[in-house]
């Protein structure tokens, strides 16, 4: 129950602050609008490029929002308060992962089929892409959150985060852009989960001092 409440809290916070689902989705759409300017949709490998773009957008929209996972709660003291409730820190971290994934990836996943249809991609490929995104985006959220927890309290670390995060995202992007790699992505995400849970928990313990 408290676990559920924490997730609700974060979603409420995301919602109150206008970064709700509609808006997060708009971001992907906007990036997709740029696509035709860079490459002609009639080109041969278009699906491949389109998928690459989807993954790039996911990577970027996670990059643009990971700061919010812990930073603002850390700065205003709410993180202190949450930790003092003495719920297992690992679960608190999980709840953050989940709420962040819901607020930022669900909208993307909703937009993908729509945009894919608009670009004339066929239904099998769309399902493929969505399964991949479901499997991969979780791992990307975990990694993003973990890295952002490393730099809590340092406001000027945006670029630093990108530099740490992007290389870690490369395997996701490579396999994501590939057609049949759901299993690999699930594997990667599970790996990312373990790594991130450990890192995040550890660094929160250190930071909240």
């Amino acid at each position, binding site marked *: 129950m408290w676990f559920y409440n924490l997730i609700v809290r974060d979603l409420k916070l995301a919602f109150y602050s*206008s970064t709700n689902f*509609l808006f997060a989705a708009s971001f992907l759409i906007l990036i997709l*609008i740029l696509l*035709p300017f860079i490459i002609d949709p009639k080109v041969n490998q278009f699906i491949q490029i389109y998928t690459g773009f989807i993954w790039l957008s996911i990577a970027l929209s996670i990059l643009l929002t990971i700061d919010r996972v812990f930073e603002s709660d850390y700065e205003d003291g709410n993180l202190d308060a949450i930790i003092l409730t003495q719920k297992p820190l690992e679960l608190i971290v999980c709840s953050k992962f989940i709420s962040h994934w819901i607020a930022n990836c669900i909208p993307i996943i909703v937009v993908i089929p729509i945009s894919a*249809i608009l670009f004339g991609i066929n239904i099998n490929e769309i399902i493929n892409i969505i399964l991949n995104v479901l499997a991969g985006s979780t791992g990307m959220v975990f990694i993003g959150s973990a890295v952002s927890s490393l730099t809590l309290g340092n406001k000027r670390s945006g670029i630093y985060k990108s530099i740490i995060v992007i290389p870690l995202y490369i395997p996701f992007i490579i396999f994501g852009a590939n057609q049949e790699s759901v299993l690999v992505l699930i594997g990667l995400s599970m790996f990312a989960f373990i790594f991130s849970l450990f890192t995040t928990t550890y660094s929160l313990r250190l930071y909240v001092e």
Partner: protein
Amino acid sequence: MFYKLPNTLIDTLRNWLPVFYSTTLVTFSIGLYYAIYNSPPDYIQGDSMRIMYVHVPAAWLSLGSYSILAISCIAWFVFRNPIFNLFAKSIAPIGAVFTIIALVTGSIWGKPTWGTWWAWDARLTSMLILFFLYIAYMMTWQVIVNKELAAKISAALGTIGFINIPIIKFSVDWWNTLHQPATISKLSAPSIHISMLTPLMLMTIAYLFLLITLFLIRYKTELVEVKISRIKH
């Protein structure tokens, strides 16, 4: 003047709302009856053209809503009366929903007729931009902390975005696109058969009442919010 207005206005709105509710319901029932049963299928497109009765009114009203929004914004610049902001704020989400309906039904209709869900042509792209204008307008109020600034920026956004409306409207004439040129809303006689025109007009009226109803509800809540913020001060 503005400070007194809300009290009486809220009561008036409250009294009139049921009338609009019921009118919307009735016109929708009649309109849908005509659209689904009492009109002929198109001789080329077949039944898929019935989407028109949903698509066209939504498209029209999405443009109409934005025009109202833009005019309110311009009026705010001229008169600096916050009531125009309330107009624009109330209409924005409704317009956004109509835009989504037009986009989605358009895509659905596009598949059987054009053989594609979407194309990056002028009409469709400018329509998508309209959607973003609505979103950006709504977000501006929420995201900009300083309300004075929010009023200015949102009004500027709403006004500048007005350019998009004639682009949407005339895109079919200016560029050659997949989309249908104006057939009904031409200034000369409409080039559509009366048996299709009737349900279309009925549906348009139904949409219009829906718009008014939703607008009144939104406007009422906006007014109440303003009132609360005045009481607490």
